[in-house]
């Protein structure tokens, strides 16, 4: 746990110093900002999938809801940004709760497909619901006047990301975290331990959606333009890939995964058509050779834990 804290402290110092490193280049700051937003999303998905064992292949839909909530609240109601950010989270959480309700009854592949369906349906609804979402034309969002430049908004995003990381880490340490892991390991056993499985599963969806909604809100401000194209199934897949690549049930792993999969397209964009192949190959190699994700290269603790697990499984 200590190592994890220090890693995160270190990452945060680096993120805060990063604009100086790259000489405030707008491109590098933009890419780093995207990375941070994806890292938030990856962490919240990891909460649901890595810690809670609930697969979601439709998480981009939550990002979309967060982004559109911010855009619509800003453009139609003129709400200020300090209100939009939490509201986007809350509204996405409510949707997450509603999605969580039927999802409670499903598990494994069935849940995967149900969330896939959700992820495909939301952009189509956004497209159709022109009056509210601008449909195909998309919506432009001005950055809040307080953080109107890329750099200042980058810092704001970093701070929000750090707060969310802290919240998630604390959440995992508490009763919530234990209940999540118990459900992942065995729903029946969790039920026997007195965990209200359906309640916690629904809550997991809501909490994960809440943070993803906030990421969506930041996305809308940061990119400055949203359209249904931004939230297709590929995004959901990439974010899922991030948490697997980095390491399931690892917060630093999510950050690492988000980093790598934001960077690959930027590095590979000069080699036409190879992005998808390289990303896919990275996924395959990780699963085959580092099933605990890249973070397992960093975490020395992991090895010890693995042998412990083995002993446990033998005894059981």
């Amino acid at each position, binding site marked *: 746990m200590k190592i994890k804290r220090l890693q995160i402290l270190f990452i945060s110092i680096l993120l805060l110093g990063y604009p100086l490193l790259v000489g405030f280049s707008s491109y590098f700051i933009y890419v780093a900002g995207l990375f941070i937003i994806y890292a938030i999303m990856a962490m919240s998905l990891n909460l649901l*999938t890595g810690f809670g064992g609930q*697969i979601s292949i439709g998480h981009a839909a939550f990002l979309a809801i967060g982004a559109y909530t911010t855009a619509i609240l800003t453009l139609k109601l003129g709400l200020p940004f300090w209100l939009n950010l939490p509201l986007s989270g809350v509204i996405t959480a409510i949707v997450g709760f509603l999605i969580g309700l*039927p999802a409670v*009854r*499903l598990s*494994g*592949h*069935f849940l*995967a*497909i*149900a969330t*896939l*369906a*959700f992820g*495909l*349906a939301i952009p*189509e*609804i956004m*497209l*159709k619901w022109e009056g509210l979402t601008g449909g195909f034309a998309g919506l432009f969002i001005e950055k809040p006047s307080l953080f109107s430049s890329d750099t200042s908004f980058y810092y704001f995003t970093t701070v929000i990301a750090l707060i969310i990381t802290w919240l998630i880490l604390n959440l995992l340490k508490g009763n919530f975290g234990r209940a999540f892991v118990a459900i992942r390991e065995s729903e029946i056993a969790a039920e026997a331990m007195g965990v209200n499985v359906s309640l916690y599963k629904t809550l997991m969806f809501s909490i994960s959606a809440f943070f993803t909604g906030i990421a969506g809100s930041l996305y809308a401000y940061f990119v400055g333009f949203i359209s249904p194209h931004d939230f297709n199934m590929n995004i959901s*897949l990439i974010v*899922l*890939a991030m948490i*697997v690549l980095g390491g*399931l049930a690892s917060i630093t792993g999510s950050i690492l995964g988000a980093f790598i999969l934001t960077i690959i397209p930027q590095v590979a964009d000069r080699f036409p*058509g*190879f*992005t*998808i*192949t*390289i*990303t*896919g*190959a*990275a*996924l*395959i190699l990780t*699963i*085959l050779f580092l*099933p605990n994700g890249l973070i397992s290269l960093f975490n020395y603790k992991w090895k010890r834990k693995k042998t412990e697990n083995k002993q446990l499984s033998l005894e059981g």
Partner: protein
Amino acid sequence: MAGQIIIGGLAAGSLYALAALGLILIFKTSDIVNFAQGEMAMLITFISFTFLTVTKLPYFVSFLLSLVIAFIFGMAVERIFMRPVQKAPILNQIILTFGLYMVFRGVAGIIWGYTPVGFPEALPNKHFNYVGITITINQIFIFVVTTILMLGFYLFFKHTKIGLAMRASSQNIATAKLMGIGVSSVFTRTWGISAILGGIAGILIAPVTFLDPNMMGEVGIKAFAAAILGGFTSLPGAIVGGLLIGVFEGLIAGYVSSELKSVFVFALIILVLYVKPTGILGEKITKKV
């Protein structure tokens, strides 16, 4: 109008069902959802197309040749990629097949490009009119092929030893080994057969969707939907699911909104899963770990 919509829906639905058969076969035996199934089908269709256009082989020769290649390809995918994760968690398996999906699609794009091309139909294009309802001979052909394949596999699973061995392996790997079943080779062959099914699906679907690396995108998703709706373990379920989705989306497109037809389909699936979490014809999966 309703009659024609239903026929159109059945035609589209049999494509979804056809694409779903391979998915179900793999899931039934090795408990893996193969998200790369559609892309494997696409690759095989491209191979068939290469036989047709570059080496100028007759349709059915290239059809059969590409199915042979499909069998080898499917087995290779299992041996190289899937076997190492046989015991890994579901999520790892899902992600691995997603990885394959990306690589297959990317590689197809690099090799063949993204410009869609036409693909010949199995039979000369003819259509029949009956009380104002039109149906083409190829639609009937696809439907018949799907039904025959489904029936064939049903009998295969029910009445052959190897079919029985596949079912046994899917239920309890260790005990299946104690029966003398070479479980690994059963899985390998399953993937080979699924790739053949995918190939058949791809080659029959290509004249409708046209051939490019994205050809199975929409059909693939609907095939998943069909499989899930039908229960994911049941071959007849795939047919029921596929036809239901085809007709349902046809009716929605005809009478409600053509853009929202997928949304309605997904809503239908979530509804069905909520009422019956194992799908329409699905069995409760009791699995020994």
